């Protein structure tokens, strides 16, 4: 089996799984459905491993063309867009994450969804999602990527609205799709501009034709491409101002949140930016905008996370915040660390979501952290893996988040497009992250249990025999947790900071930089040529690292001290903050703002168009037009009254008019 066929198989097996589950295994037992679905992801994972650690590691790029997709004549040539796949080192990383984390989550979901009716639908969507996500990262041109880009949006829409009987879920799905669509318009425009500029949408063709001269001649166009792409990224990767859909997307089943809204789909914006890094770096405007948006998102979402009480909401805002970090990394020119953080985040955030799902599953869909507490005794595996995930996300030294996040923060200060202010914003966001994550972990797993009482009220009669039986979940749910916990620890060692490498006596670049060298080398060269070398130093790196670690420790300690007494621990501060607290609790009321500023006016315009434009004006003109003609004709016809006297009157009028015309 050659590599091309393997690559095609990686893409198509999940689609096959989806079709099987969606059409042919509707009546099959749950076990069959789950097995088919999981295998449809696990098999590509195996193939991916073979590909990535084989030819890709040795520097090859695998490219295969499945079929001709679009081909139209263009001025002076053809615009040929084949359905082509390309696997290089960047897509290799994502391929492993998607299929690897994906298989674990499928395994987990099999148990998590066991009491659902018609679970085939869920797995069909999930497999379809993986197919879309794979075509996103494997696409050799923008259009194939866009197929995946919108495909994941649709799957996300379907999965968020999986429990469609509750209209709120369906609405959340719709919101996600529409917000994504806004971003997709940006992507579309970026494509159109590259067709205009390069006559192609193929990544490698664009890279080949983008010379420095071309870039400087078309600087505004390059900037426009970058900004349009940023709009797309903001939609998909939940950046300001389009992040609003992601917290609502938590309405979907928890495995979906883990896979789609933490590990894979939302990171596709980061992937795209890295993929297009060679182009973005030509425009410092675009890069700076990306960095600023990223930093702002990181801080903004982190502040909301501080006060949320829904376990999944906290994680959702944490995801938005972490995505902001990744965008910040890309924006300052440290694409490789953006990708590194993407990877570590995929591990620990999937872990955290699955852990949260495990808790929710055990507690029978209770999501309020004020009604939890002390769960670590009842669910030790979930608890401890969750703690590992928390340590990873807050950047505790030695855990994966530490390496990737600190590298991003370091470059935020010293990178090509970096600025100390960006670092300050990022560090503040990291401090908030430490606080809310520790708060979350502490309130859920430690301290006094607040479960029993709440449970009786929460679930009524049928849960009576369950209420005292919160227990660890079966292996299919804990195995993914443990594996992800392992990766959450070791995953960060691909991006050991230079300063530490130096201490350890390691030479050269760290693993992720080396691995991604072929992808981002041209971007690096451009940055070097245009903007000069990065202006960092080992001392600065140590200083920044120390500062952020210290801040992290202080905030974590603060959180533990505050919430030792239980969820009411923060009330004093909340009261002191007063209106600001309520504003943050209401997520800064951004949704309401959009509703009032965009949605409602548009609705009014739509109503106005219908009632005034269509019914009154156009209909009026069209209907009154004939009426007017009728009026005219009736007057004309009345003139033909047959009465001689009237004819004479007309003659008189005509003679007077004629006289007036002649003499005046």
């Amino acid at each position, binding site marked *: 089996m050659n590599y091309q066929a393997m690559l095609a198989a990686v893409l198509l097996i999940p689609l096959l799984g989806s079709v099987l589950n969606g059409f042919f295994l509707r009546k099959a037992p749950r076990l069959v459905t789950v097995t088919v679905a999981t295998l449809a992801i696990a098999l590509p994972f195996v193939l991916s491993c073979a590909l990535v650690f084989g030819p890709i590691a040795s520097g090859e790029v695998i490219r295969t063309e499945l079929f001709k997709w679009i081909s139209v004549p263009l001025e002076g040539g053809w615009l040929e867009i084949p359905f082509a796949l390309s696997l290089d080192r960047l897509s290799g990383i994502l391929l492993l994450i998607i299929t690897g984390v994906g298989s674990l989550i499928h395994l987990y979901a099999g148990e998590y969804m066991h009491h659902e009716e018609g679970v085939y639908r869920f797995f069909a969507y999930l497999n379809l999602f993986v197919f879309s996500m794979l075509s996103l990262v494997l696409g050799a041109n923008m259009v194939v990527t866009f197929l995946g880009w919108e495909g994941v949006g649709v799957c996300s829409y379907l999965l968020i609205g999986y429990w469609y009987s509750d209209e709120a879920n369906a609405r959340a799905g719709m919101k996600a799709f529409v917000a994504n669509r806004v971003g997709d318009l940006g992507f579309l425009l970026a494509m159109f501009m590259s067709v205009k500029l390069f006559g192609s949408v193929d990544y490698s063709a664009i890279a080949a034709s983008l010379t420095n001269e071309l870039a400087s001649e078309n600087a505004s166009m390059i900037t426009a491409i970058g900004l349009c792409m940023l709009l797309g990224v903001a939609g998909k990767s939940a950046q300001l101002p389009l992040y609003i859909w992601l917290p609502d997307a938590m309405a979907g089943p928890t495995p979906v949140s883990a896979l789609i809204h933490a590990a894979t789909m939302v990171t596709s914006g980061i992937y795209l930016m890295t993929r297009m890094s060679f182009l973005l770096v030509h425009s410092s405007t675009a890069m700076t905008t990306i960095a600023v948006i990223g930093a702002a998102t990181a801080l903004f979402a982190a502040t909301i996370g501080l006060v949320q009480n829904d376990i999944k909401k906290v994680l959702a805002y944490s995801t938005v915040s972490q995505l902001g970090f990744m965008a910040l990394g890309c924006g300052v020119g440290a694409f490789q660390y953006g990708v590194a953080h993407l990877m570590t985040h995929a591990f620990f955030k999937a872990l955290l979501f699955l852990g949260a799902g495990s808790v929710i599953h055990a507690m029978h869909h209770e999501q309020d952290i004020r009604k939890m507490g002390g769960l670590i005794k009842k669910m030790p595996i979930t608890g401890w893996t969750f703690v590992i995930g928390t340590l990873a996300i807050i950047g505790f030294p030695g855990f994966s988040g530490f390496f990737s996040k600190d590298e991003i923060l370091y470059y935020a200060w010293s990178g090509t497009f970096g600025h100390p202010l960006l670092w300050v914003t990022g560090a503040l966001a990291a401090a908030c992250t430490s606080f809310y994550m520790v708060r979350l972990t502490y309130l859920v797993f430690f301290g006094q249990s607040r479960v029993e009482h709440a449970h009786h009220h929460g679930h009524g009669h049928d849960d009576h025999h369950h209420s005292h039986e919160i227990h660890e979940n079966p292996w299919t749910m804990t195995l993914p947790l443990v594996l992800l916990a392992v990766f959450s620890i070791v995953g960060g060692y691909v991006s050991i900071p230079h300063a530490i490498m130096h201490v350890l006596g390691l030479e050269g670049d760290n693993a992720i930089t080396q691995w991604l060298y072929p992808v981002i080398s041209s971007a690096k060269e451009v940055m070097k040529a245009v903007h000069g070398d990065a202006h960092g130093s080992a001392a600065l790196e140590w200083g920044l690292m120390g500062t952020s670690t210290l801040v992290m420790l202080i905030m974590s300690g603060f959180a533990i001290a505050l919430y030792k007494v239980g969820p009411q621990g923060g009330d004093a501060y909340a009261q002191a903050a007063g209106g600001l607290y309520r504003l943050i609790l209401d997520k800064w009321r951004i949704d309401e703002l959009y509703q009032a500023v965009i949605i409602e006016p548009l609705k009014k315009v739509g109503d106005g168009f219908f009632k005034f434009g269509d019914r009154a004006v156009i209909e009026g003109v069209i209907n009154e037009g004939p009426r007017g003609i009728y009026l005219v004709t009736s007057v004309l016809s009345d003139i033909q009254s047959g009465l001689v006297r009237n004819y004479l009157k007309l003659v*008189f009028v005509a003679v007077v008019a004629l006289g007036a015309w002649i003499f005046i």
Partner: protein
Amino acid sequence: MLTLPEIGLYFSFLLFLVGLAGVMFRKNILFMMVSVEILLNAANLAFVSASKITGTIDGQVVMFFVMAVAACEAAVGLALIIALYRTKASIEADDLKALRG
């Protein structure tokens, strides 16, 4: 100071207006015909006045022709009125709407 024929022209115009009003506003065909006679007389007055103004005789000749035509008109018109009255038992002009569009 206006000369006689010029005043004649002006009277002819006033007479014409009066006759026209009669034709336009009366519904009785007989009255309309009588009004037409006024119209024709007004025209005659204009012809004669013009003849005087220009010092030519042609206007008076034409006035004679007009008179002849008026006689024809009266003869035919009155014959028509009689025929009409026989068929419709009315000489209201508004009852004659065959030309209505």
